[in-house]
């Protein structure tokens, strides 16, 4: 399976706000995390939601975020994480990591 990212890669979620059925939670848009695993390829829900049975297959990742990155005033442990399933077209290399 061709994937743009590998487990351990630092990625940033696009800060986009398109209309329609989108399965990228607002609270992680624009935030950086680390690829936890590759889940496989699944039909793009943004197209499936509108009856497109031939929706393109997209690579789905689990991305792990530090809770403190998501919520700067987070009061729990600095090791706490939130892990979110995100499609490849929502992810970019983390600019902080680019050489």
């Amino acid at each position, binding site marked *: 399976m061709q994937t743009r990212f590998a487990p351990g890669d630092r990625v940033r979620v696009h800060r986009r706000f398109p209309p329609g059925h989108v399965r990228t939670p607002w609270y992680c848009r624009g935030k950086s995390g680390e690829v936890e695993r590759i889940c496989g390829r699944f039909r793009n829900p943004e197209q499936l939601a509108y009856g497109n049975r031939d929706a393109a297959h997209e690579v*789905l990742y689990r991305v792990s975020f530090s*809770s403190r990155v998501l919520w700067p005033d987070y009061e729990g*442990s600095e090791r*706490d994480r939130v892990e979110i399933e995100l499609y490849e077209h929502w992810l970019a290399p983390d600019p902080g990591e680019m050489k």
Partner: protein
Amino acid sequence: MSDHDHTGEHEHGHGGYDVDPSHHHPPQPDLEDTPFSRHQLMQMAVTGLLIEKGIFSADEIRAQIEHMDTIGPARGAELVARAWVDDGFRTRLVADSKSAAAELGMDIGPIPILVMENTPDTHNLVVCTLCSCYPRFLLGIPPDWYKSRSYRSRAVREPREVLAEFGTEIGPDVTIRVHDSTADMRYLVLPMRPAGTQGIGEEALAKLVTRDALIGVTLPRMT
């Protein structure tokens, strides 16, 4: 509230029979007393059409609803209890829950379920912030609180406070991993085997594993 005035003269005798004829509780609404939503109407219309076209029969849809209602958290508990007594099974369950469950003759359905193992250092909690994704084919219907906006928004924002409200204190040295079930995966928490359960059989162990422990809002314990 005019017909049910708690400032009135009568004592409100809950727990006993209400013998005051002037004390009327409003009747509980029947299912049909609220208007159908657009989606309920669409569902009824589509169901009717599919039956009319012979895609499936009324009996088949009834049987599927009946089947879904037989699915419950006990199936998840069975997997956990086996994992507690069989290290090899635990490893296989975490690696590939569908084929591990098949070893027990259990079909966990078409959607991949990721098993997240609690350890002395890590506690796992499951939420779907977008809607109410839940491993229904394994555990059945989710509890109402799981679908509430309050749980969905707070589980990712302040999981330790949410857990405390469920009576679950997670120490500051334990990492919390919250799994937001946003797309095509579903999640099952594999709790740690409670202390003091040595020599207890697999079936009795399974009884310690409740639905809430499989979501991660509580921990199994000896009762």
